């Protein structure tokens, strides 16, 4: 990478923001139209008609919406967490990918949050879930895992946004100095008057390190808390002590795979092949293998201990998930996607193959979506009283909204690429080293 000059870096990044091709607008408008069709209209329909338009029923009161929620929270996991961990461990290959990864975190949290509202029976009363003083003496229930969620996700979204923002300040300043018009005032405001003095760099570094340390336990706690939504119930298949680590590992796993997918698409889309190279996919591939093994281990633990309890509750729930059509297909597809295919990453050849990495990472994400779907939709229909057993399958509204979340995420990312320096200019420069001085010696 050392043959790239600093100017080139600046140019490349600013180019992504200022030069807008027709294909970008087409993608953007497709996204917008898609969101209206797959997300907006069905949601309005759902709000107007009621949750009855979903496939939910008694006792399967949770379905695809919560699957999506957990999935997107999971995706959110890797970005910031990975960035923070790699930052603390001073891993050099972090630098060219972390900005997008952090953005991914923030956007997927936002996407996940939309699912909360979509899932609610009376979303117009959303603010009741926040504790605010009122004359009616109504308060929120801090014993509820959902209440933990409100705060965990709120904190996580805030923290990851700040983390993203702090890291971007020098770049925003760099952009500010190179653009004109409304952009100049926008980035001028965003850059908070960054001048690049030593003191500023020093403070930024300190703040950034602080957040990096802060965000690691936070990220772990967020997904633990999300898992407690399920694990603190009494329901067979959900009430598992392993769930918190299982979810955290699953989240990092799916998040990492998400990064791989995203990076491959991004470098292609904005022609950043020279910044995101085989090196990155090589390292990420190793990470995925490790996570895959961890995930498999936890998954086996979950299934094994459930099976070994020998209670009718666990056995029925597990056999419904693993050996009953159509869920058995999904289950074994998930095992294939999450346990077996990622093992191919053991081979360096696979790791550095962009196509293979893309396919496997997409596979992992499909697998992880299925994992969450199976956890919810094979546990609730098999609760304690067999008389109430009834299968759950999503309705067209739920499927449509699920597609909509992906479009929504894409839209956010498209806007991000255009409005935000999606690669860290100053850190890529660090990566390049100091060519001028080197030349001098």
């Amino acid at each position, binding site marked *: 990478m050392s043959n790239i000059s600093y100017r080139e870096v600046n140019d490349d990044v600013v180019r992504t923001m200022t030069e807008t091709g027709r294909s970008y607008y087409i993608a953007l408008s497709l996204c917008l139209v898609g969101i209206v069709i797959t997300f907006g209209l069905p949601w309005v329909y759902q709000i107007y008609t009621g949750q009855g338009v979903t496939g939910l029923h008694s006792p399967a009161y949770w379905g695809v919406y919560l699957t999506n929620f957990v999935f997107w929270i999971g995706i959110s996991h890797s970005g910031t967490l990975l960035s923070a961990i790699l930052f603390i461990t001073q891993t050099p290959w972090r630098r060219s990918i972390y900005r997008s990864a952090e953005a991914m975190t923030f956007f997927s949290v936002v996407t996940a949050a939309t699912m909360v509202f979509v899932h609610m029976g009376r979303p117009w009363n959303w603010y009741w879930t926040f504790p605010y003083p*009122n*004359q*009616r*003496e109504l308060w929120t229930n801090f014993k509820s895992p959902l209440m933990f969620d409100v705060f965990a996700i709120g904190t996580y979204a805030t923290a990851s946004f700040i983390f993203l923002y702090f890291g971007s300040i020098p770049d925003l300043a760099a952009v500010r100095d190179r653009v004109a018009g409304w952009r100049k005032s926008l980035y001028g405001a965003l850059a908070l008057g960054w001048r690049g003095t030593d003191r500023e760099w020093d403070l930024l570094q300190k703040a950034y390190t602080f957040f990096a340390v802060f965000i690691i336990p936070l990220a772990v706690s967020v997904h633990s808390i999300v898992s407690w939504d399920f694990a603190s119930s009494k329901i067979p298949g959900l009430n598992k002590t392993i769930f918190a680590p299982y979810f955290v590992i699953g989240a990092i796993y799916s998040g990492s795979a998400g990064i791989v997918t995203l990076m491959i698409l991004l470098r292609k889309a904005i022609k950043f092949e020279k910044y995101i190279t085989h090196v990155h996919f090589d390292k990420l591939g190793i990470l995925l293998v490790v996570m895959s093994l961890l995930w498999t281990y936890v998954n086996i633990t979950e299934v094994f201990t459930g099976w070994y309890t020998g209670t009718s509750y666990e056995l029925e729930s597990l056999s419904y998930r693993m050996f009953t059509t159509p869920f058995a297909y999904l289950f074994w597809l998930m095992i294939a996607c999450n346990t077996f295919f990622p093992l191919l990453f053991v081979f360096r050849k696979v790791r550095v193959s962009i196509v293979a990495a893309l396919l496997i990472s997409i596979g992992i994400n499909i697998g992880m979506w299925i994992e969450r779907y199976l956890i919810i939709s094979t546990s609730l229909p098999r609760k304690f009283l067999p008389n109430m057993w009834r299968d759950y399958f999503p309705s067209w509204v739920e499927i449509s909204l699920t597609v909509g979340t992906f479009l929504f995420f894409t839209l956010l990312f498209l806007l991000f690429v255009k409005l935000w320096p999606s690669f860290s200019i100053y850190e890529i420069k660090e990566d390049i080293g100091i060519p001028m001085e080197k030349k001098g010696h």
Partner: protein
Amino acid sequence: MKRFLLYLTVAIITFTIGYNINLIYFSDRAPEQPINFSHKVHAADNSIPCLYCHIYADKSTISGVPSVQKCMGCHKIIKTDSPEIQKVVSYWEKKEPIPWIKVYNLPDYVYFSHKRHVKASVPCQRCHGDVAKMDRITRQTVIFGVPFLRVSPLKMGWCLDCHKNGAKEFIGGPVRNGTDCWTCHK
């Protein structure tokens, strides 16, 4: 452009304010009743007690409006020449009830018992205002001839306030289980 945005913002904000002012302070104004009945004449000038006409107030959840028969009980002889009384008579002769317009309305999900409140000797005026001064029943206090602010907002916070503190005047302490949701909701 900038200016237009400003105007738009201002318009939206004031629109909302205007809408809500009406909703909160001016809704349920004294509607025109089918008969120009004056509480002032009955309750103040003639000192008829409330329960004489609203006979169910200490027996039931609802207080009840007097039957036409009740009206005619007195007005067969009293003030029969008044045009308003003649309206009553015409209802009576047509054997039709008088379609009064409801002023105090509670939503379906509220359980409110007049009986409990009357038995706890909460004066009617506490919630219904000084009806003895009203020619036409109204939920507003009148300041300098301008109707303003409702006597009772009939909102949950207002109810709770009395259940916690105000009740001391009547029962010497907060209402037992008075803040339990199902005390007032159904």
